[in-house]
C-alpha cells in the first residue's frame, strides 16, 4: 500500500530533478556521486610514484616506456551516498492546521526526498528526535525502505520538547561515513547549541542541510484580539493582545533568524527556509532546482 505521504505530483517533479550530492560522499557501492577515494574507475585523476606494496596491475607501462620510472595511474572513484534524514519530532512542530502543520509538512518533505534518493539508488536513513532519539531506521537503498520510512513518519506523534544541539553532537559519533545530513526542524531551540551541533557534523565532512520549517503565523505574527498563548513545549500560558506585541516579536524573531542563517552560512551549512503555506511540491521543486543550478 502506497503511503499518503508520497504524493505523485510532488514526486514527479522531484524525481526529474533528483538530488545529487554536492560534496564528496563515502559510499559502499559504485554510484553517481564522487567519492573521496581514488580507485580504478573511468575518470582519470593523476599519476603517482610507485611505492612498494602498490598493486603492480596499476603500473602505467606506457609511462614507464617513456620515462623508465614506475608510476601508478589513479582514477576518481564514483560511489553512492547515504542521506540521513533527521526529523524534529518535538511538540513545537505541532503548530499549524492541516497541510500547514509543520510536522506534517516535514513528513511530506522527508518522504518525498527519501523516495527520490532511493530512486537514484542512494541510501537513506531516518532519525526522529525531540529531547532524545525516538526512532532510527538503518540506511538502505531498497524501495521498500521508503515505505518503512513513510510508515515511521506516519506513526510519528510529538511528545516532548526539543533538544537539538546535544543530539547532533551524539550523531557525529554515530555516522562514520561522510554523507548528506538533512535536518527538518523549526529550530526553536538554543541557537548557539544548534549551530554547534551542525558545525560539528559539517566538520566531519558531511553535507549538512537545515530545512527550517516555519509557519507563516510564526514569521509574520498576524494575530489579533485577546489570546491566551499555550506553550507547546511547556506549561507556560500567556494572556496578551498579540497585535500590541507584534513589532517587538518580529524584531526578536528577525534577530533569531539572522543569527541562525548567518551561523549556517559561516559554517558551510545549507540553510533552507520552508514556509508551510507554500506547497511542498513548489517548495521542494524550487529547492532542488536551486541545488541543481549550484551543482
Amino acid at each position, binding site marked *: 500500500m502506497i503511503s499518503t505521504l508520497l504524493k505523485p505530483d510532488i514526486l514527479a517533479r522531484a524525481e526529474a530533478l533528483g538530488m545529487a550530492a554536492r560534496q564528496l560522499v563515502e559510499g559502499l557501492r559504485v554510484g553517481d556521486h564522487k567519492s573521496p577515494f581514488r580507485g580504478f574507475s573511468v575518470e582519470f585523476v593523476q599519476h603517482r610514484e610507485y611505492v612498494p606494496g602498490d598493486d603492480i596491475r596499476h603500473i602505467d607501462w606506457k609511462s614507464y616506456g617513456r620515462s623508465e620510472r614506475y608510476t601508478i595511474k589513479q582514477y576518481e572513484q564514483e560511489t553512492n551516498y547515504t542521506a540521513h534524514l533527521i526529523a524534529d519530532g518535538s511538540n513545537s512542530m505541532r503548530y499549524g492546521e492541516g497541510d500547514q502543520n509543520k510536522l506534517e509538512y516535514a513528513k511530506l518533505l522527508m518522504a518525498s526526498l527519501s523516495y527520490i534518493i532511493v530512486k537514484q539508488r542512494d541510501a537513506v536513513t531516518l532519525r526522529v528526535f525531540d529531547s532524545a532519539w525516538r526512532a532510527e531506521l538503518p540506511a538502505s537503498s531498497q524501495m521498500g525502505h521508503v515505505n518503512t520510512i513513510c510508515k515511521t513518519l506516519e506513526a510519528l506523534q510529538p511528545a516532548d520538547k526539543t533538544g537539538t544541539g546535544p543530539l547532533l553532537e551524539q550523531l557525529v559519533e554515530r555516522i562514520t561515513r561522510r554523507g548528506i545530513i538533512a535536518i527538518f526542524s523549526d529550530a526553536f531551540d538554543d541557537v548557539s547549541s544548534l549551530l554547534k551541533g551542525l558545525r560539528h557534523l559539517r566538520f566531519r565532512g558531511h553535507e549538512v542541510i537545515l530545512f527550517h520549517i516555519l509557519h507563516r503565523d*510564526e514569521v509574520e505574527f498576524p494575530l489579533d484580539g*485577546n489570546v491566551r498563548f499555550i506553550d507547546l513545549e511547556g506549561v507556560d500560558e500567556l*494572556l496578551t493582545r498579540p497585535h500590541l506585541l507584534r513589532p517587538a516579536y518580529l524584531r526578536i524573531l528577525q534577530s533569531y533568524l539572522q543569527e541562525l542563517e548567518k551561523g549556517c552560512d559561516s559554517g558551510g551549512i545549507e540553510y533552507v527556509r520552508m514556509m508551510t503555506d507554500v506547497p511542498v511540491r513548489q517548495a521542494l521543486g524550487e529547492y532542488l532546482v536551486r541545488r541543481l543550478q549550484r551543482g
Partner: protein
Amino acid sequence: MTFLSPWLLLGGLAVSVPLVLHFFYRARHRKLPWAAMTFLKQAIEQTSRRLRFQEWILLALRCLALLLLAFALSRPAITGSTIGGRGDSVDAIMVFDTSMSMSARDGEKSRLERARDAALTVLDNLPNNSTIQIIGCSDRAIPLGPVSPRNIDQARQIITNLESNSLSSDLHPGLIEAISTLDRGAGTNKEVYVFSDMHKLAWERQSQAIRGKCEEMKQRATLLLVRCGNSERPVRNVGISSINYPDGIPHTGTRMPFSVLVRNTGNEPVRNVAVAIEVDGKIQERESETVPEIGPGQTYPVNLTAKLDVAGPRVVTSTITGDDLPGDNRLDRIIPVREIVRILIVDGTPDTRDPKESGSHFVRNALIPVSESDQDSYFVRITVVSAEEADPALLGACEVCYIVNTPASSADRPGIPGLSRPFVERLLAFVKSGKGLVIGSGENIIPARYNQVLGSQGLDLLPADLVQAIIADPQQPFKIAPDSTLTPSYLERFTNEPYRTVTADADLQKVVGVKTEGMKGRVLMRLANQQPFVLSRTFGEGEVIFIAGSLDEKWGNWPAKAGSFLSFQQLTLAHLCGKTIRGWNVTAGEAIVWYPGDAEAKYSLLTPDDRTLPLGPAGGEPPTITTTETVLAGPYRIVSEQVDRETAPIFAVAPDLAETNDLATMRNPELEQLLGFKPVFLDAGAPEGLKTERAKREWTVWLLLALFFLAVGESIWAWYCGKAW
C-alpha cells in the same frame, strides 16, 4: 455652574463600562497553542511596561470621554440655577433705561433706538413658551407690561413705543422692580436684560444698593447688561442751564431781556449752536442767535429779548439745536408777567416836610428809579403809610410790604404809632401766601418788643431774634462785607464789581444786634466784623428779609449809595415778586402741587406730549392736587370739566440736568468692579451676540467639541499604541 438636565449626570456611571471591560476583558480570549513561546516571552518582557502605560492611558481617555459625554448631556451652564440654555423657555425681564441720556444720537441711531432693536432681537430669539416683562427705568421704575407675560406681540408693541424722558438715571428702582417681577415668575430659567447706555450716574447714584440688588439677582437670574451707546463716538451736548431775566420784574409792554445760559457738558466743542426764545409758543415772535462755538465745560450766556404782551404766568421757552442729545435742548420757564407791582411801605416816621429823614423816601426812590414825570406810567406803584394808617386790607392788594423803622406796637415808643395787632396778624397770612416782607431797622425798633410781636415770642416771622443795637466807633464805622454774601442767593451779584466796591464803601454807625443762637433764617450778608446785616427766612410760600441797618441815613450812608442800595432794593423786589411762581417751575420728577378752589371737581393732567392723565379730586386741607407724573420736560396744565385748557394753571417742568452734567459712561471693567461679579455684557450694536448669547452660556457644544477632540486623540493614541514600539 449649574446643570439644565442634571439627571443625565447619571450617565457618568457609564464610566464603569470601560473599567469593567478593562478588568474583565481578559476573560474573553481564545486559546492558541504556540511554538515560538520564547520569542513571545521576550517581546512581552521588552514591552510590558510600555503596554501597561498605554493601556492605562487608553483607559483614562475612554473613561474621560464617557464622563465628558455625560457632563455634556447634562447641559452645564455658567451660573445659577436659573439660567436657561438653548431651547428652554425663559422668564425674561427687560429693564430699559429711559433716562434723558438715552435720547443721545451717537451714530446713525439714538441709544434708545439701539436698545429697541436689541430688545426686539432678544424677543425674536426667545425660546417657545417664554414669558416677558418690560420695565421702564429712569429715576423711577415703571412696569410697562405686557398684561399677559406670554403675549410676545404686545411686548413687541411696548418696546416699539418706548420713548425716553427728561429724568435722570438711577437703575436702582428698576432693579428692585425686576427682582419683584422675578418673584412672580414661575419658571426656573430667568434672564434680566438691562438696556442702558451705562451712564455713570445711573450706577453710581446708589452704587452700594445697586450692588446688593445685583448680587441678589445673580442668585436667581442671569443678569445681562446690554450696552446701547456707541463707545467709539462721544456725545456732543449743549444744554440750557437756565433762563434768567436779570433786569428786574417781568412786566407787560416791554421787550424783556433774557439771559439764556447754554452749557457744553460734553468733551468736544459744539459749533453753530442756534439759541432761540419765545413766549407762549409764539413762533412768529421768536428771537434767535447762533453761537459759533461753545467749548467743553464752557457756559455761554446768550442774551435774547422776548415781548411780554399779557400779564399773568407766561411760558418762556428757549430751544437750542446743533448737538447730539435733544433731551436738554429745550427749557420752559413760567414767569409772572405783571402789569403793575404794588408795594406797601409802612414807615414808622414818615416825614412829608423833609422826606430824606424817613426811610420810605430812600426805598421809594430805589424801587422807582425813573424820573418823576415817568413815575405814573412805571409798573411799580408804591403806597407809603404810617403805622397807624396801615390797614390790613392794604396788604391784600400788594406784592411786597416794607416795614421801615416802625415800632412793633404803639406802646414801644411814646408818641410814635406802632403796628396794629390786626395788621401784624394779617402779615402772617400775607407772607405765607407767597408774598414778600422787608423789615428795615432804625431807632424806633426795640429788639425785645420785636421779639415779642414778630419774633420767636410772637408770630415767629423774624429770621432771628434781635438784641440790643451795636454802635460803632465814630472813627471806625461798620463796613458791609459784600464778600460775605451767601452764595447761592439772590444777592450773590454783590460779590462782583461794581456792586462790591460801592457796597463796601458804605459807612454804618449803628446796627441792630442779632441773636445767632437758635436762628431760624439765613444770613445773606454780613458786616466786616461778621455781624449779620441782611437776613432771610422763608415762611410758607413767602419770605421775610430783615436788614440790621437803617433804610435812612440816620445810622449810616448806605441808603445814599445808589449803586449799592438801589440794586439791593431792586434785586430784593424782583426776588420777592418771583416767590409767587416758585412752585410753577419744577424739575422733571419733582411734584407739581396745586391748591384748587374746587375740591369736588375731577382733575386731569395735560402732559407736554398731549396725554391726559386723570388725577381725581383734590384731597387734604387745604384741598391739594399733587402729581409726580412729570417725566417729560415742558409745560403741564391741570384741567377739569370746569376749567378749560387756556385758563388752567400751567406748570413748567425742566429736564433734570443732573443727567447731562457728566455724560461719562461706565466701562465693562468698572461695572464689574462695582457689581463685584461679572455679568453678561452684550452690545446692542452686535445683534449676533444677542442671538447666540444663550447658546454661549450653555457649555454643551463646547463639551461635545472637546469630546470630539478627545475621541480623535484616543483614536490616534490607540493607533499609535498598536503601531509602534
